[in-house]
């Protein structure tokens, strides 16, 4: 078990060093920051002085090492556009995105598994066929279109839910939450569904096909021959076996929810990291872009590491022989 985890941690670090290199290379290759920072009226001396002060005259590997070291301490420099510490801006924006992502992840996983199991057990029922057909729409429509359709229906026509923003938020320390006010909760509904719908249909289809596969196995027949009830067979014996491969995909999809919140946040003008990133691109605010990139890759790597460990907990065969 321990060698297995160590191996995965080592791989994770390798991934982070590589994404770090990509984030870092943006500074060197996407325009010269000196140009952006000094105005038209600059002298060569000014340029040299600033270059030395920022450490840009040093060899690239040294700069990269410094960047990694600073990044590991949560220091990504100063935003070109806002003139504030990048880490500060990110901390300010993170709660909006994390709350949205958490809610849509819960929606995707709970609904996805429940509907997947339902459509697998009632394979030939009318409801199962109906859900499967509708789910095709969920997979094939692009996220922004779903968001716009939902806004049109629930905000414009019915007027039940707000079409943009987070509503009122409550401050708890440095964290701001929309979970505690009515307008905050209302504002969460549409973006969460928009963001989670694709993942939900994906999880549902995966659970369904895995479950159908598992239900064909001999140990399920044998469980029936032992006289176990359908409920125990479906939810105890079959579901656990179904989850083994499904968990990997869920892990990857959770990362994707956070990374791809950009589109949803743009559609709903959600004041989160995605919107921050889009704005940063428009203004070539490289420190913000680099920080966002690093943060997303850390999140992906951590989630996948957790999934691998969880995998070993569910499947005893992995525990004994750590291959």
């Amino acid at each position, binding site marked *: 078990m321990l060698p297995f985890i160590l191996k995965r941690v080592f791989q994770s670090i390798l991934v982070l060093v590589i994404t770090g290199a990509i984030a870092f290379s943006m500074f060197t290759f996407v325009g010269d920051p000196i140009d952006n920072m000094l105005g038209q009226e600059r002298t060569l001396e000014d340029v040299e002085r600033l270059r030395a002060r920022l450490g840009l005259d040093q060899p690239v590997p040294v700069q990269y090492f410094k960047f990694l070291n600073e990044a590991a301490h949560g220091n990504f420099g100063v935003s070109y556009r806002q003139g504030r510490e990048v880490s500060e801006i990110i901390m300010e924006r993170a709660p909006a995105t994390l709350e949205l992502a958490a809610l849509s992840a819960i929606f995707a996983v709970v609904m996805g598994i429940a509907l997947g199991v339902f459509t697998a057990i009632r394979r030939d029922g009318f409801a199962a066929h109906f859900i499967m057909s509708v789910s095709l729409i969920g997979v094939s429509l692009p996220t922004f279109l779903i968001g716009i359709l939902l806004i049109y229906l629930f905000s414009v026509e019915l007027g039940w839910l707000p079409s943009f923003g987070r509503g009122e938020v409550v401050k708890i320390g440095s964290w701001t939450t929309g979970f505690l006010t009515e307008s905050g909760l209302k504002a969460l509904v549409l973006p969460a569904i928009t963001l989670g719908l694709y993942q939900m249909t994906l999880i549902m289809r995966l659970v369904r096909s895995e479950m159908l596969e598992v239900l064909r196995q001999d140990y399920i027949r044998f469980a029936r021959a032992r006289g176990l009830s359908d409920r125990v067979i479906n939810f105890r014996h079959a579901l*656990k076996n179904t989850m083994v491969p499904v968990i990997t995909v869920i892990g990857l999809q959770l990362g994707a929810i956070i990374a791809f919140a950009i589109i949803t946040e743009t559609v709903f003008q959600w004041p989160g990291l995605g919107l921050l990133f889009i704005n940063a691109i428009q203004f070539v605010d490289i420190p913000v872009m680099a920080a966002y990139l690093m943060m997303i890759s850390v999140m992906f790597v951590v989630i996948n590491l957790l999934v691998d460990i969880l995998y070993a907990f569910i499947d*005893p065969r992995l525990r004994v022989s750590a291959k």
Partner: protein
Amino acid sequence: MTEPVLSIRNLTVEIPTRHGLFKPVKNVSYDIHPGEIRGVVGESGAGKSMTGNAVIGLLDDPARVASGEIWLKGRRIDNLSPEEQRAIRGREISMIFQDPLTSLNPLFTIGEQLVETIQLHLKVSATEARERALALLDRVSIPDPKTRFDQYPHQFSGGMRQRVVIALALCSEPSVIVADEPTTALDVSIQAQVLDLIKELASETQVGVILVTHDMGVIADTTEQVTVMYSGEVVENGPTDKVLSAPEHEYTKSLISAVPRPQVKLHRFPQVSYGGRETTFKIEDLARNWHKPELSKSGKLVEVKGITKKFLEKSAILPSRRTYFTAVDDVSFDIKDGEVFGLVGESGSGKSTVARMIGTLLPVDGGQIHFDGEDVTAMSAEDMANYRKQIQMIFQDPFSSLNPRMKVESIVAEPLIHHKLLPPDQISGRVHELLDRVGLTRAAANKYPHEFSGGQRQRISIARALATQPRFLICDEPTSALDVSIQAQILNILKDLQEHLGLTMLFISHDLPVVRQMCDRVGVMKQGQLIEVQDTETLFANPKQDYTAQLLDLMPRLAQLSS
């Protein structure tokens, strides 16, 4: 005589298909008395398992009981509601499946699975259920039940798992156990132990056992009564001794004569001739277009010199802490031109690993393999391609050794194309010729593997292996997955190939009677070592090693058939 615990009366099962009603079980009747073991024998598709499934109420949709009655201890059970049938399942009637490797849920400990079943049927507390589970494990002779209780199925060997499955079947003291091919997937020695256990349990707990099998040896060894089924109908019914020694129905006679005899060597395997099952083909067809393989320089085509194979058992970062399992330990033998060399042993003894190393599917960790004087383990890439053309393999499982997405024509043509043996316009003709040789029609070329039965698929494998006109054929348990009747056909094809085409063969099997019929010389493997090599006749008449004698002893014997 006591009252039967289970009676099946005129049972008919039907499956609606596009071509009308198909009846896999027609008018079947038999009784089981307490403590009695009734064998149900027949080839696959005869409806023996379907009858068992109907008894336990587990017919797969859309199969259903069309008519007839099933009585359990004076109560009619075939017309109960699904819920009432479930209450009987596992409590009154239990089941044991063929493959112990897949019938336990891999994610739960065997203790959890036992306790779950016991609590379901007996309504006892968790502690009592645990006590009872431990007692059951002890009863089926699992050593150290307390430790084993908390282990997962993958930590048990095949034979041990089948014992766990039996323990699960015994959870609620059932009146009847349906054992569907319970030992088919097991070795000879393990098979004997499991059958003994079933016999013991039947006499001790007075449970009635329906033993479904296609193995006549198992029937002769284990059962008191036997029912012979052929295409859904019972053709013969009676005490085992009587049916085996004086069969009345033609099918039974032909089935019994098709069982390979361990005692005598016959020229050909008798086939099941009943119902037009016999397939023949002309030897001239086989020999046409086939150049006799050239003889090796030394007279020994294959020389295996001290080969060894180790598998990593436990990985570790430090090489010194890694542990290895020696699967093949310093094995040496040689195979002469035109000879069939047999390799026997229990599973895990390393026979298949040896075959794979000779077939270059696994690298050798030590030792050498010489083919016609050339060292295979140190060949250039070019020589290796030439070597691979001259050897071909036939595998055990005809279901997984053929690519399901390829048509038979492409499967058989693949070696011809890969080794560039024929110009493209001649390939199709050669494929048809090869299919003819193994007794398949030309129409087969355009079908996919799933449209064929197990025996037909194995013939496709043989046709594929013959495509390159090999000098050496490696057969790894070629008939273990097949019925007696089909087995005879395949073995006869292999025998003809060997005799008329002068093929040299390595024949691996755990079925000793088959080995006796097929092989000129036999090597016995035990735990990775080759412990004895003898002429077949000498080995069967007086084995040198105790282990060999023990293996020979364990063969289920049809004593009545020795004459």
